């Protein structure tokens, strides 16, 4: 109880509250503008959080991402353009409701269900993660090696239709993580005699390059070519929302739980959760024929799912230090920069901080409703900002943010280089998720493997000596078998198609 009180007094300090509200407003802005994603918002926020204590840093990222995902629903309902990929599953549904004169109701459902989903996710996070952490205290380097490998492998498996490209993206990420001093032996690797590379490539310029610069390179050519139409005004945002939510309460709650679980899986994030829950609610619906015509049922489920998934992703991130998606990969990077290695020990040594993080989550999700309403009211103004003004400002922010990590221009070069690489990769359908997860997980996998080998004096089979390690190891090998199988299966199918045409 004393811990909870301490945590409460930590969160309800004016500076933390100001940061949470400020970051929410930033997330609101980024999410509401089509083309700017929640991950990009996080990448741009990290340079600022770099100068904060751990709690406000996490609070800022949590509230900005939750708000960005919700604000992403707004241009979806108004203009049929999803603000972030997480809203894409139900953009048509919300827009068609708008065409029936129910745009206020559609947005109201988005907001209220996002909050409910988010709260379910936070409750599950706060309930399950300490339990899992207690179990994980018995883990040794063997289990961590397999767990990190399993996380990375799952991220490759779910990354897209072409697992081969996911694998290569992952390998490039691992290669980036090898630069600098080896954490176990102290050997210098791939530093090209550049002193700035001795400590390895910093995570910040990598994030900004992969998620902000690459996106800018994709968007800038479209400036002036694609014009955003003027959005309609929203009348009576909460009319009939309570009634519809009560009618579909089962679907909403189910999606909250399912979304959290999907978010907790490595590699699957808010966008996959909302697609899956939308599809399931259609399958279980009494009126599946109404889906896709402006029917609120799918909207209730999918809106709840994507925000629940955001919280779910923090379960493996906080308990094991294994990120569930790109945003938690960034969070782990931020915590490591602050000298905190996420893992079960944090739950025992730093219980106050963990409780405070849960309270921040709760707060950020409760803020969704009032700030979301503000976002709906100001959507016309936000959407009228010309992208020609916005993109140069974001570019400047990227440069200054990358520079601010180590006060070095080398990081700006790295940001530019990786931005170009990520742009080319995205143009050729390489997923970026496996790459950033590999950058974070590479050192974890390597150092745990080498530690296990030192203990086992080089006997690789000892990695399978403990029951949990064996289970995790078999799962990881199974995932790899399916990656390789589907690669060859794809090749066979494409060869067959080429032969028949």
């Amino acid at each position, binding site marked *: 109880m004393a811990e909870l009180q301490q945590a409460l007094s930590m969160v309800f300090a004016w500076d933390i509250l100001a940061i949470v509200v400020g970051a929410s407003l930033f997330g609101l802005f980024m999410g509401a503008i089509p083309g700017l994603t929640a991950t990009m918002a996080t990448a741009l926020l990290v340079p600022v959080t770099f100068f904060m204590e751990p709690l406000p840093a996490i609070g800022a990222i949590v509230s900005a991402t939750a708000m960005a995902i919700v604000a992403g629903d707004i241009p979806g309902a108004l203009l049929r353009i999803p603000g972030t990929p997480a809203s894409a599953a139900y953009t048509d549904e919300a827009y068609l409701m708008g065409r029936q004169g129910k745009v206020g109701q559609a947005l109201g459902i988005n907001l209220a269900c996002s909050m409910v989903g988010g709260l379910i996710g936070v409750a599950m996070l706060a309930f399950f993660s300490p339990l899992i952490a207690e179990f994980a205290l018995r883990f040794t380097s063997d289990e961590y090696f397999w767990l990190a490998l399993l996380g990375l492998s799952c991220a490759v498996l779910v990354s897209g239709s072409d697992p081969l*490209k996911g694998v290569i993206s992952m390998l490039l990420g691992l290669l980036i993580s*090898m630069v600098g001093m080896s954490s176990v032996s102290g050997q210098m690797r791939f530093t090209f005699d550049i002193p700035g590379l001795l400590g390895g490539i910093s995570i910040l310029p990598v994030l900004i390059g992969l998620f902000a610069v690459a996106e800018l390179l994709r968007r800038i050519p479209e*400036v002036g070519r694609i014009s955003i139409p003027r959005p309609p005004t929203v009348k009576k945002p909460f009319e009939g929302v309570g009634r519809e939510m009560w009618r579909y309460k089962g679907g909403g709650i189910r999606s909250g739980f399912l979304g959290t679980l999907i978010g907790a899986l490595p590699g699957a994030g808010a966008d996959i959760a909302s697609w899956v829950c939308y599809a399931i609610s259609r399958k279980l619906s009494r009126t599946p024929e109404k889906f896709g015509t402006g029917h609120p049922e799918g909207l209730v489920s999918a809106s709840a799912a994507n925000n629940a998934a955001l919280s779910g992703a923090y379960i493996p991130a906080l308990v094991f230090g294994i990120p569930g998606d790109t945003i938690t990969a960034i969070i782990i990077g931020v915590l490591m920069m602050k000298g905190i290695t996420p893992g079960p020990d944090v739950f025992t040594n730093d219980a106050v901080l963990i409780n405070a993080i849960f309270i921040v989550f709760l707060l950020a999700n409760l803020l969704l409703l009032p700030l979301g309403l503000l976002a709906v009211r100001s959507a016309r103004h936000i959407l009228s900002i010309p992208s020609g003004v916005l993109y140069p400002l974001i*570019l400047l922010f990227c440069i200054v943010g990358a520079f601010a990590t180590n006060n070095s221009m080398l990081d*700006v070069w790295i940001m530019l280089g990786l931005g170009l690489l990520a742009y080319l990769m995205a143009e050729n359908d390489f997923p970026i998720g496996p790459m950033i997860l590999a950058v974070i997980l590479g050192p974890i996998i390597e150092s745990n493997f080498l530690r296990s080998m030192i203990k086992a004096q080089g006997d690789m089979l000892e990695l399978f000596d403990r029951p949990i390690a064996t289970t995790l190891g078999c799962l990881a090998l199974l995932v790899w078998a399916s990656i390789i199988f589907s690669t060859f299966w794809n090749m066979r199918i494409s060869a067959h198609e080429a032969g028949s045409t």
Partner: protein
Amino acid sequence: MRINDLLLGVVMALLGAITIWASRDFPSLPRQPYGAGTFPTLIGALLVVFGGIMALRGWRRRGALFAWQGEVGPKRVLFCIAMVIAAVVAYIELTPILGFPVVSLVLLTLMIDWLTSHRWVLATSVAVIATALVWLAFAKLLHVPLALGVLEKVVY
């Protein structure tokens, strides 16, 4: 721009081969075969294997080495990318000499002016405000040493 899998696969396999070659001298840990070279060699080997599979797939599917996709023409896209690269390189090279305020002001004005088809009043005013805000936030509040360059003599 879509590049044929054959070409991409060959580049990845080459990168893998170079990685293996560059990690050949990393010493292993005492009394065992594993060490600082294990992972880089493994990553390199996997790049060779999977790059090879990708090249093979691209070769079997044939198709053009380079193809253009998307609604915006190649000239415009390449020009925009070149502009972004030029802006970042100009920032890196010029900031130590001219100072952050000057470089940021000029770069922002030029880029906004270009992207909003010459609304230069808007461009200049946004550039002035943004430069001042970034300076205040990063240099003053967060103590990031953004260079003053020649302005150092003017200010001090």
